[in-house]
């Protein structure tokens, strides 16, 4: 028996000897989507490993598995070469794995020291928290990373960069051996980024293994020792950063087999429907100008956080712009609220269709007609017969299969809920439809259906704006692509200029 169990241990322990934490053949499936397929990853003490991949490549899923939030369906997590089970986040922490997230998950109303020691505060008599020791220890750790922060200050009084430092101090307080940094520089200024680099260097010197997730190639080449590239949930390549160029990484990220087939469309744009000029927002975007024609699909590509959704929400009247003009069919319009947008023929299908799309406690027909109530009522009173007619027309058009339009949307399957949301917007008879990440979280089969449907809408003369972070989708569906980076339009590419590498270069700014 003993012998048998011995053989279960990895035989190539030599290769794993160096890694403090490794993933071996990890698979993770969500209903309808394979998020990770037999991926491997090795983190080595005193080295920074950069995890690179497009949006949706599986990076966040890996972080969640490493921190015990998700459980893998197959494969092994190896700590010091021995299989470990991260059933709960605490188990990962006990093995010395800690993560610093994009948006730091700390507590604004607690002091810096309390944040650092939350969950493992030093105890004094009667099991009470020993404030004095806690503050002293916190100061010691903060001094160790050269952070000029008073441990007794409340966290909310700190800037974003100092909050990151507190997160790092917290990581050190639990004697972390592995530090995961998920896009740590996304919200930092140039100077703060330099300080972060220094800190990473000092963590390296202390022998911590660091997993560094970033979209920015300059910082990857600046601080990483190794790289691992994921694409569509698969491991594409790994090795030493010194052996590759930026071009190599870009190619690994985007180069793919043509596994998806997109509908054939004859691109025949008609009259200009929408013209946006110099649209700006105080903090989110500026200088947004473009025009859109009937029957056209205009792709908006960019990294997450490039300001695409923020701009679309402003165009739709959810947030107020600080300047700029909109023309619809050549006539200037003012959009101050979503109601104005709908009245002017612009509709927006948000990314989070569960949260922002359907009203689960209302029946199908009431969901479908919600933005069109003005059309099916007189003096505030609803004309129920017309309401049912409208709802029936558009649910049938989308082939929504439900026994009764009285069924509450909360009782429908995810796919049918999507159809309700889309039917709702088509029922307003829009001129411009904005689809934000239309296939995010949708399985492959339904993706094709969504794409076909988009092509159909365009063929009917609707102008379609598609915000997408998936390169194949952007390439396969768009007549034209606008690339945004850091709140600005950095490129507008015609169909014949569309190359995966071009998109990534513009989006990442290299």
């Amino acid at each position, binding site marked *: 028996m003993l012998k048998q169990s011995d053989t279960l241990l990895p035989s190539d322990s030599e290769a794993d000897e160096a890694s403090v934490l490794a993933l071996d053949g990890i698979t993770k499936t969500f209903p309808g989507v394979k998020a990770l397929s037999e991926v491997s990853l090795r983190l080595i003490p005193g080295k920074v490993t950069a995890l690179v991949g497009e949006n949706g490549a599986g990076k966040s899923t890996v972080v969640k598995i490493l921190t015990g939030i998700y459980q893998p369906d197959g494969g092994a997590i190896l700590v010091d070469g021995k299989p470990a089970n991260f059933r709960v986040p605490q188990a990962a922490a006990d093995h010395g794995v800690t993560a610093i997230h994009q948006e730091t998950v700390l507590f604004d109303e607690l002091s810096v020291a309390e944040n650092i020691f939350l969950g493992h505060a030093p105890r004094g008599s009667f099991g009470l928290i020993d404030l004095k020791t806690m503050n002293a220890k916190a100061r010691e750790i903060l001094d160790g990373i050269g952070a000029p922060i008073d441990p007794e200050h409340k966290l909310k009084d700190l800037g974003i960069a100092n909050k990151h430092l507190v997160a790092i101090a917290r990581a050190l307080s639990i004697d972390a051996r592995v530090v995961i940094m998920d896009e740590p520089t996304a919200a930092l200024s140039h100077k703060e980024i330099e300080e972060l680099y220094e800190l990473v260097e000092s963590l390296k010197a202390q022998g911590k293994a660091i997993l560094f997730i970033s979209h920015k190639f300059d910082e990857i080449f600046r601080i990483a020792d190794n790289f691992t590239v994921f694409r569509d949930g698969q491991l594409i390549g790994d090795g030493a950063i010194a052996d590759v160029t930026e071009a190599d990484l870009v190619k690994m990220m985007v180069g793919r087999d043509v596994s998806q087939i997109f509908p054939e469309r004859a691109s025949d744009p008609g009259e200009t429907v929408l013209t946006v000029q110099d649209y700006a927002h105080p903090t989110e975007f500026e200088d947004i100008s473009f025009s859109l024609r009937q029957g056209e699909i205009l792709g908006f590509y960019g990294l997450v956080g490039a300001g695409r959704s923020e701009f679309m929400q402003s165009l739709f009247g959810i947030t107020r712009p600080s300047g700029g003009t909109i023309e619809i069919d050549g006539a200037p319009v003012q959009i101050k609220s*979503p109601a104005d947008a709908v009245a002017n023929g612009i509709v927006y299908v948000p990314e989070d269709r569960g949260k922002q799309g359907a*009203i689960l406690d209302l029946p199908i027909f009431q969901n479908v007609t919600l933005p069109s109530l003005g059309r099916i009522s007189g003096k505030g009173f609803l004309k129920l017969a017309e309401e049912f007619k409208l709802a029936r027309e558009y649910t049938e058009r989308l082939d929504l299969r439900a026994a009764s339009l009285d*069924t509450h949307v909360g009782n429908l399957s*995810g796919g049918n809920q999507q159809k309700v949301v889309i039917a709702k917007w088509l029922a307003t008879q829009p001129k411009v439809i904005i689809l934000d990440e239309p296939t995010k979280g949708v399985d492959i089969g339904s993706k094709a259906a969504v794409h076909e449907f988009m092509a159909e809408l365009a063929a009917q003369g609707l102008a379609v704006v598609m915000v997408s972070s998936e390169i194949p989708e952007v390439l396969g569906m768009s007549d034209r692509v606008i690339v945004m980076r850091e709140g600005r339009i950095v490129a507008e590419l015609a169909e014949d200029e569309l190359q995966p590498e071009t998109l990534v270069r513009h989006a990442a700014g290299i």
Partner: protein
Amino acid sequence: MLNRFITSREALLIGAIILLLALISSRFPAFVAPSNLANVFNDTSPLVLLAIGQMIVILTKCIDLSVAANLALTGMVVSMVNVAAPGLPIAFILLIAVGLGTLLGMFNGLLVWKLAIPPIVVTLGTMTIFRGIIFVISDGKWVNSHEMSDAFKAFPRTDILGLPVLGWIAVVAVIGFTVLMTRTTLGRAFYAAGGNPHAATYAGIDVGKTQFWAFTISGALAGLTGYLWVSRFAVSYVDIAGGFELDVVAACVIGGVSIMGGIGTVAGALLGALFLGIIKNALPVVDISPFWQLAISGGAIIIAVALNAQANREKGRIILKRAEHAS
């Protein structure tokens, strides 16, 4: 359709009310005599009126704790107006009551809409303010029966077809608000704004404004009830209807209104109020101490909430083909 009705919350409540009445009538048959039932309904009418307004407010994910204070303030104002000008026609008194109540409700609504203060804080504040104003304008004195004009006192008690005007007003409100909630764009907006504020915003509904209208309606009903209350009991003072706002919220909860917003009906609010009203009227008859009343009302609330939670538990989605057609 019939099947759905039988399993609905309203049907469950009707069943509970019938059971309750059967239980009481087994010992006191007189309780279920039509004239007594009309009495019970009439007695519960103020609760019905306020519960309808509260239901709409709760539907939009808010709460209005100021309804009883609004009622008391409006009641005091109309009583004082009546004392000062005994000849003023009742139509004007009604107008003042509804108008003042509406203004007080709008004040709540504006604070929630424009300043985005949490509704529970706003109405906790205005509740105290309204009671304070009553004290200021009345000097803490009572307006007693003999000071009120006969017409002022007679209006809610006027009997029409065996039911006093007070009861008829509740009937009209139930019908009117059922139409409002099911047949108008505003009614639909209440459900949408509470059911999913994000989705409602994207659909072009101004959630804050919708909440403002909910408070306005609640205020108008509280104002109307204010006059009916002081004239029926023929007295007005600072503390009338003290704590009544909790009965109103309780009626809503028992009536299946989801405290999370988005779920609730006028029929539910009516039945919840009647359920509480019957308990309140029956307990003295069956010779149970009024102190038990509170405990029994509280028990009913907890049972109702437990049933609600049970009903709202995930029933699972309809994914199977055969389930799709059975639904």
